[in-house]
């Protein structure tokens, strides 16, 4: 079903750019998307670090 503009605006979103050489660039990377991209390219150490960050709480000292 087609979504209205208002519905689309309320939904969080990410954007991907896949370059001809296979590199993938992301805007608004979410933790879930980081996990997906790590599966696609396990050698990407930066993405792996982002996917493996464990949630924490209340870091204010």
């Amino acid at each position, binding site marked *: 079903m087609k979504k209205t503009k208002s519905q689309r605006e309320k939904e969080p979103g990410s954007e991907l750019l896949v370059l001809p050489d296979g590199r993938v660039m992301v805007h608004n990377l979410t933790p879930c998307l980081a996990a997906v991209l790590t599966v696609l390219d396990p050698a990407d150490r930066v993405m792996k670090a982002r996917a493996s960050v464990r*949630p*924490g709480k209340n870091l204010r000292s």
Partner: protein
Amino acid sequence: MRQVLEIPSPPRELTRARLAARRATQSRALLSDCRFCAHDCGVNRLIGERGVCRAGAEARIFSAQMEAADELELIPTYAIAFSGCDLRCAFCVTGRQSWNAAAGRVLETSQVAAMVEQALDEGARTVMILGGEPTIHLPSVLDLVARLPEEARLVWKTNAHGSAIARRLLRGLFDVWVADYKFGNDRCAERLALLPGYQRVVRDNLVWASGETDLIVRHLLMPGHVECCWQPIAAWLGETLPGVKVSLRAEYWPKWHFALHPELVRTVNDTELERARSIAACCKLNLVP
């Protein structure tokens, strides 16, 4: 008439929420002669006048979600993005929302505060306020901060083009500032972002922030701008703010009005990235992932 803003240092016993609430009231009145950013427009946003950012009195947001793209020490962060910006960067990755203060939906502070609480319960390490540029919406930002849990670690993500008035209103409220240093010379700032006098303003902001808060200086490496922009930025940071955390970002991709500038039609290549890292090493920068 030019306003004189007296904002005393926060008493230690004042909670962040109360301090923010007090300043929200002060800053709301300042919308009648808006000088939150370095454009220093002086327009009365309360009666519909618009300055460079085109923002009115009401703040809007275009995104609020958990994100993992920022510096590792900050993620996962719950990022709340305000619509509108005082800069006009041709390469803006969120140009549609950042150049349009009317984009997104009206900020409902109590609703967003509830979303923040939920995100913290789900494991967000930090709460990031960004844009566009949040500085142009200071009264609403402060309203929101006044409703956030005292223990939440707050991150102020800014283009570092705020005024001294804005800095005084923000003092003591955010645990971390992530501040952009976009251009290494005024010529590139004027050409790519229609921004006069950039160096003086950004440097004033960075020096101030480094003395007030945990500061991360972020630079988005752009194709063809390693020598003219990154090199002088790195040199200045190394000399003026030794040891400051620096986040060198290489994920530029051609968006928005990039086609107006021939060098911006591609991503950063490996040679440029290597050269940028070499410059960082020469300047003994404290790069953070």
